[in-house]
């Protein structure tokens, strides 16, 4: 398993490094240029006039959230179907391990990478805020990171399942991108799930654990994140089963 995990890491590290750099750059830019950006928003009422409210609007409820969702899609892609196209499948399948282990190692590394990426704003935002003379609570950053990890894992799992089913690189990418674009709209159309669109859950918008008056989480969103992780695990299990049954000519 460690060798397979190492292989999965080698295959995805460029995506991970790029994603980490992009997220860190985004967080830094939003904090460093906060004065100009807050002036551009032109807010007159709290919470948008507060620093915490500004960061929620710009990072946790819009660009940052969307970038993380996008990254989750791209990290989920790859796997045995892609290896067939690249002609390396024979080498991988010749390894003395069951096929499911390949998928499990890739999924585990992907979720760990996602967790590491969710931690980027936890480190960058409070630290950079302190440097520019502002203050952003660590507890809030950790709370949003938990939500990002939970919901991002579901996105990752959907993309992971698509990568098992669709063989071509670009087609898998197109299907994953479109699915991720359509999932939030589809969820909003299901009665009873209107308020559970992925980006709303990640940002806390309209959720019981979020106070819109202060733009802060009112409690640690562990149950939501745990439920999302369980859903992600279920999807990954299905994908692993599909990968086991796949016949490679």
């Amino acid at each position, binding site marked *: 398993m460690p060798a397979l995990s190492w292989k999965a890491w080698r295959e995805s590290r460029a995506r991970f490094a790029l994603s980490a750099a992009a997220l860190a750059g985004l967080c830094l*830019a939003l904090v460093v240029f906060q004065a100009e*950006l807050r002036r551009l928003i032109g807010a007159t009422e709290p919470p948008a006039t507060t620093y915490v409210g500004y960061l929620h609007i710009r990072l946790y409820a819009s660009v940052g959230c969307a970038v993380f969702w996008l990254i989750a899609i791209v990290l989920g892609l790859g796997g045995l179907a892609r290896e067939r196209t690249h002609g390396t499948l024979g080498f991988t399948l010749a390894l003395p391990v069951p096929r499911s282990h390949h998928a499990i190692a890739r999924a585990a590394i992907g979720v760990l990478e996602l967790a590491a990426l969710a931690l980027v704003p936890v480190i960058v935002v409070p630290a950079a805020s302190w440097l520019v003379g502002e203050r952003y609570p660590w507890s809030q950053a950790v709370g949003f990171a938990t939500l990002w990890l939970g919901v991002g894992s579901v996105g990752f799992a959907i993309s992971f399942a698509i990568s098992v089913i669709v063989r071509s690189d*670009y087609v898998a990418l*197109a299907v994953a991108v479109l699915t991720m*674009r359509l999932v939030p*709209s589809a969820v909003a159309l299901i009665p009873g799930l209107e308020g559970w669109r992925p980006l709303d859950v990640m940002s806390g918008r309209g959720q019981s654990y979020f106070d819109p008056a202060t733009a802060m989480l009112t409690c640690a969103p562990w149950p939501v994140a745990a439920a999302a992780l369980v859903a992600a695990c279920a999807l990954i299990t299905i994908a692993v089963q599909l990968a086991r049954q796949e016949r490679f000519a």
Partner: protein
Amino acid sequence: MTVGAVRPTTSAPRAAASLAYKAWCETRVRLAVAAVALGAACALVVAQGDWRLGHPMPFARYVWSAAYNDSVKTAFVWLAVILGTGSLRQEHAVGTAGFTLALPVTRGQLLAVRAGVGLAEVAALAVLAAVVISGVSWATGGGALIGLSLRFVVAWTVCGGLLASIGLLASIAIANEYVGWLVTILAIMAYQVTVALTPLRRSPACDLFQIMAMPSTGLPITALLGVAAATAGVLAIGHRWLRARER
């Protein structure tokens, strides 16, 4: 062409047709997936707006705000980049670059035909979006909105062409398909943020996404010519990179 290589003997139109067929075969599944999903998204967005006919917001305005300036536009941007990507760099990873380079054509021709097919597919996608939006709009009693749709076909084809060219450029520079696409999308997002943060925001002609949304008031001819020139520039850079790789 490499020094000492055999000069191309195939006639240019015939070679271009063969290369176009090759590029079409490589991208047709992507195009089919994109067409089905974009068509469905357009139909859903417009049909969902049916109940708004009695709303104070004019139907044409609703179609513009919900489809041409919102979710459909974002999906189109992402798909345009996907349709544009794919070059010799990826073929090298798959192991087919040798066969492609053995063809009696220059790398410039390969790039030109690949870019041409990508642009044609982007145009087809823009036409499809316009046809579906107009059709569903007409069927639901909101009017065909033909003038509006035609202006958007032109704007989206030109702007989508630039996005596809950037995708192609990224795929020339970066071997990994996913990293190439991610770099392109992140670069586009960075461009959006830069436009929003700098004085460029006062000039809508500098904002590609504003240009894509502008035809609701009239076709921004000068801005579109600028975008077309930028596309040519991006492809020229791609050609230079390919030539540099050849040496």
